[in-house]
């Protein structure tokens, strides 16, 4: 039984990666793209110490989707995505707005915006459900993601927006990297940090909205936080962290989509996240920059050198 089930696992995995089924191909593409985009944008968020803004933006897409549905009356993807984008941007901007000024703590501001927006979304959804026109299928898909339900057109949109994000990051690479590491220095150079920050928030909102179809609103934060956090153990330099983060995000997407194909009932989002967690654990243990094992080895060799020199 045991060997049989591993055989089944490998044959199903091979079937998935053979790409003979269109929907498997779409799921793979969607998951990899999401992993790459989140890995890229997440790098800047994590380095700026704004990891959890992504969590808030993810939760905050809910009211936008509901309002778009109320206005258009259909489940047409573009309208819902625009709604999601608008409310994610609004949430990110509200967080920056409230957290400036006295007697407000930035962490609490994230929590306040997250819960209020999500609460509003739940209220609107319950209203839609109660109204005669509203049949809300796919809510759990929206919450936890399903890469297999992504259509080729949507993948096109994601790919296009992703390419645009890559180009923008390339164009604004120097000011962005300055701002990420030393905002005051960037300001003193006369860089428009305010606008850069706004652009970063917009990029975050775009990444979140592109991802919710595949990973769901609740776990989108994970794909924004975990790959960059793992990547920080691998390199000290921004390009290295960025590249490693994109790679980890993309591979997590691919393996996660495969797992969700092989095991029925496992949603894509959680599967991707758990694969990324494995990468994070490996980086935490063996990463050259501050990983546990290299640090222990270095400490040991330092002690040996000290002992040899007779210093105790």
């Amino acid at each position, binding site marked *: 039984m045991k060997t049989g089930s591993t055989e089944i696992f490998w044959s199903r995995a091979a079937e998935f990666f053979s790409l003979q089924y269109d929907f498997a191909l779409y799921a793979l593409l969607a998951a990899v793209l999401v992993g790459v985009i989140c890995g890229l944008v997440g790098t800047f968020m994590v380095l700026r110490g*704004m990891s959890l803004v992504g969590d808030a933006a993810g939760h905050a897409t809910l009211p936008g989707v509901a309002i778009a549905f109320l206005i258009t009356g259909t489940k047409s993807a573009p309208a819902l995505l625009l709604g999601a984008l608008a409310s994610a941007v609004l949430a990110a901007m509200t967080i920056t707005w409230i957290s400036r000024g006295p007697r407000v703590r930035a962490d609490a501001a994230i929590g306040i915006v997250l819960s209020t927006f999500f609460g509003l979304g*739940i209220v609107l959804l319950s209203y839609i459900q109660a109204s005669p026109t509203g049949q809300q299928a796919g809510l759990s898909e929206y919450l936890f993601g399903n890469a297999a339900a992504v259509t080729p057109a949507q993948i096109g949109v994601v790919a296009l927006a992703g390419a645009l994000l890559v180009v923008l990051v390339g164009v604004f690479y120097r000011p962005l990297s300055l701002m990420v590491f030393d905002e005051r220095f960037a300001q003193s150079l006369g860089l428009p940090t305010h606008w850069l920050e706004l652009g970063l928030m917009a990029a975050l909102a775009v990444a979140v909205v592109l991802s919710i179809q595949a990973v769901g609103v609740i776990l989108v934060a994970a794909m924004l936080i975990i790959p960059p956090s793992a990547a920080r153990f691998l390199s000290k330099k921004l390009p290295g962290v960025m590249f490693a983060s994109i790679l980890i995000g993309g591979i997590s997407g691919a393996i996660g989509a495969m797992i969700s194909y092989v095991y029925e009932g496992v949603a894509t989002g959680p599967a991707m996240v758990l694969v990324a967690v494995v990468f994070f654990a490996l980086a935490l243990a063996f990463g050259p920059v501050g990983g546990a094992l290299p640090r222990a080895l270095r400490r040991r060799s330092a002690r040996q050198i000290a002992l040899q020199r007779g210093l105790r």
Partner: protein
Amino acid sequence: MTFLIEPWQWGDWMWRGMLTLNLVAITSAVLGVFLYLRRMSLIADALAHVALPGIVMAFLVTGSLDGALMLGGAALVGLFTAVAIEWVSRQPTVRSDAAIGVVFTALFALGVILLSTRVRDAHIDTHCLLFGDVLGVSDRALSLVVWSTPVVLGLVAIFYRWLSVSSFDARFALALGVPVAALNYGLMSAVTVTAVAGFEAVGAVLVIALIIVPAATAHLLARSLKGMLAVSVGHGIIASWVGMYLAIGLNISAAGAVVVAGGALYALAFLFAPGHGRFWRWRRRSLAHRGQHQPLSPPG
């Protein structure tokens, strides 16, 4: 006035829902103040999310949905989460906010997968866990809240001095001999227990709102710890009542309505808090701008 009284005559779900909601709101508001002062509001977010894997794992180990076991399991998972977050954030390259994000999303993902593969036939309803069902509180949820509330509040009362001194100045507390670390973990466990107890009734996201938002409002309005606790509890109760009546009147989700009411109360405090409310500051500035004789006050 009949609007206020009528729902109470429709059946006992009203008082059950109200009792549960208010007890959860009070406990959360009290714990939230201590978390807020320690700048750990977002740990509440994490702990509320890990209540899901906590419940699922407790069910997998014990095979039952017995209330005490569930609370115990969830408290353990909450404690584990707190320890894990602290350990990860102590790594040289990880900031504390990233550590929170890594740990809770990982556990939440694990919980979702366990739920969808291992416990499909158990009576664990994800929608209910996330959004709550204030008007359909089960006996189990009601008794969980009724039992856990006095325990948590009693513990807070017993350790009040330690909690307050360590919230404002952890180093000073350490110097006084207060077991700061143990106190922290106790607070985390209490938050998780409250989140789990209130979970079924009010849902994960509402629990976060009840923990974070009242304390933030209280910080805008109150000047002492006792004042903060009072305002925070008041905020929780007002939001519960306003939200509940809104939900009944408009036929919308009660949990969501309570959150929105709480958010609105925060917005009011943010704009109109005496002294530093944004509306007053904006008006002061525009009056000064027009050259009227308005004394300029120092910022803040």
